[in-house]
């Protein structure tokens, strides 16, 4: 009988202990932060790294990183914000700098003003990045990367055609066309692959001359000399025949990762994609962006893209999301070194610049101190105000590209773009 009482009490005790342990675990349940981004090799990969670091101190937090194609994600986001339903929206979303003001001004209430939380010290970020996500004195983003551009080329193909690294340093676009023809003649590889529906290279040319679609106060600036020079050069490039026409992101990246195309001119964020083929290590090199000839003030530096992380007001896990951004993206210098080497993520977190990675050489790119080069070029990029109508401007330019490729008049194209843009901006 004594044994029975002991057994019952111990069983009861064990049950109570088990129950309280269970409830404690339930209370300590996992938080999942949902994030939308668009490049598995680049921004998706940087988020994964950030998540892994944050999990060390907060093991209950996991990230759900959803990968989209960029235009699909932008349209899905805009469609949902316009409809007013917040079901299915993520906690954190990546928005490209060109469209930041469009979203913030159209849907101000849907984004969380991170400057209000005081969790992030914006003095640590590049001023231009903070400015482009600020509306009415409130800043909405965690600034991420700059689209510092460069000429990424296969040093082995160029060597085969007789060109060394010095031959590609600070060249003009005309020189690039000349090199492209020689490379194709000697190696059979086309120099570039261009999507004729995407005016990315045109934007690089335009910003390298200090021009943009809009003036700083938001009016259309299509008739400026920088615009005309960029469009003329772009038409020349398209008539040069040194490129393979592609359609869409997969086609474009497939061109140079497969070894078919010899080079590409684009933002530093392409490094993640280039490095996804480790067997090509040592065969790539990076030169400064080609320069526009005949425009005063044109430089061998420009920008394509660049994005920032935003938190949605409707986020289910807003506080953990903001804390995650503030702790890793807003403070962790070591994190920025890792994503620089791994993905070419050129963050705009200024204290990270003192880190070792920013000064190191990269064996993948022929042992050159590429990140130091990108830092120098970053300082030279002519600053422009992207405005709120970049999509409309892009559409206006895209509509003229095919005509220009066939040899159409640049002045007519400019008039058409100006008319279309003014019409869409009302």
């Amino acid at each position, binding site marked *: 009988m004594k044994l029975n009482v002991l057994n019952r009490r111990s069983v009861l005790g064990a049950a109570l202990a088990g129950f309280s342990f269970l409830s404690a675990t339930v209370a300590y349940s996992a938080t999942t932060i949902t994030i939308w981004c668009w490049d598995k090799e680049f921004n998706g990969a940087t988020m994964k790294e950030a998540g892994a670091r944050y999990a060390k101190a907060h093991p209950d937090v996991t990230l759900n990183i959803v990968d989209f194609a960029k235009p699909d994600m932008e349209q899905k986001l805009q*469609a949902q914000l316009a409809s007013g339903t917040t079901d299915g929206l993520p906690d954190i979303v990546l928005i490209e700098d060109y469209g930041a003001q469009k979203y913030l001004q159209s849907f101000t209430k849907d984004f969380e003003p991170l400057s209000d939380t005081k969790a992030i010290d914006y003095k640590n970020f590049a001023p231009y990045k903070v400015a482009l996500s600020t509306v009415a004195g409130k800043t909405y983003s965690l600034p991420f990367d700059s689209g510092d551009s460069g000429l990424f080329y296969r040093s082995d193909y160029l060597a085969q055609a007789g060109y060394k690294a010095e031959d590609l340093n600070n060249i003009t676009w005309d020189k690039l066309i000349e090199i492209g023809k020689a490379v194709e003649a000697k190696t059979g590889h086309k120099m570039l692959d261009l999507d004729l529906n995407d005016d990315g290279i045109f934007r690089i040319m335009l910003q390298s001359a200090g021009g943009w679609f809009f003036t700083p106060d938001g009016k259309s600036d299509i008739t400026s000399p920088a615009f005309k020079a960029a469009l003329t050069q772009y038409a020349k490039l398209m008539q040069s025949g040194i490129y393979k026409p592609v359609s869409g992101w997969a086609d474009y990246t497939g061109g140079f990762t497969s070894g078919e195309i010899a080079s590409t001119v684009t933002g530093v964020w392409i490094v993640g994609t280039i490095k996804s083929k480790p067997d090509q290590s040592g065969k790539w090199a990076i030169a400064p962006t080609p320069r526009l000839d005949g425009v005063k003030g044109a430089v061998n530096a420009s920008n394509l893209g660049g994005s920032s992380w935003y938190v949605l007001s409707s986020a289910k896990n807003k506080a953990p999301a903001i804390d995650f951004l503030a702790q890793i993206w807003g403070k962790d210098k070591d994190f920025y070194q890792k994503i620089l080497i791994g993905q070419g993520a050129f963050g705009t977190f200024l204290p990270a610049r003192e880190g070792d990675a920013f000064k190191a050489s990269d064996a993948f790119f022929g042992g050159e101190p590429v990140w130091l080069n990108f830092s120098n070029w970053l300082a030279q990029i002519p600053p422009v105000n992207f405005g709120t109508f970049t999509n409309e401007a892009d559409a206006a330019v895209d509509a003229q590209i*095919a005509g220009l490729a066939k040899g159409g008049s640049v002045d007519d194209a400019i008039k058409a773009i100006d008319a279309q843009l003014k019409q869409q901006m009302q």
Partner: protein
Amino acid sequence: MAQAPGKTTLTGWLFKGPALTLLAFFMVYPILSSLWMSLQVGKGMNFSFGGFANMWRLTQDAVFQQALLNTLTLLVVQVPIMISLALLMAVALNDPSLKGRALFRTAIFLPCVTSLVAYSVLFKSMFAFDGVVNRFLEALHIVDQPIPWLSDAFWAKTLIILAITWRWTGYNMIFFLAALQNIEPSIYEAARIDGIPRWAQFQKITLPALIPVVLFTTVTSTIGTLQLFDEVNTITPLGGPSNSTLTLSLYIYQLSFKFMPSFGYAATVSYVIVLLVMILSFIQFVVARERRRP
């Protein structure tokens, strides 16, 4: 024993009630609401009454005019080709002496059960600059340079027409087949005995009997082509080279979800489509009525 007319009417209305309520909510209200929205101007959610401002904007908008031209061009070229093709195939497949009719019928109808996006994606990759189609054409020496399907205005439109025709010919063919089965074969026998040639038989016997079906398929094809979106959005999402494959529906989508949203103007463009559908359907009905009168 007949009930009092009032009571019958009430019962009738009670039966119709739920369906009418649903229709009112999900069809009538959105239609009226979008009509109201087409009178609003403003970016994003900042609406303000604009009266006829959007209609004035239509006349000034070169992109809209291009989209309208593209849509009408596709209509004028694609619909007659498709209907004629469907008609010919139906007449051919109606011939009892043809072997493997069931197989042909299934094969021609099979495209209609494919998903619009799936087949558009396949067409896009098949007609890429170095895709299957170009390689095939080059191998047969039909062309010596690959055709720039996706980068040339003319070829992009051709590609869209090819895609739509492939997709919908079978659908219309089935309607014609069904109508053909309704014609008495004895009429054809009598005509054959009288020595009337096949082409005259087709003209005088087959066609008049098919007028109602031709009218139906032409009207539905017109409506479908006027609203064309899925194919152009998948194959040429940015409107194609020089906006050559920008249709009205794609333009509406761009205005609402790609650019700084102008929902009021987008609603106005959608009413242009409504107007076009109304006009074209009316014309086609009138023409059919004329032909039916002997």
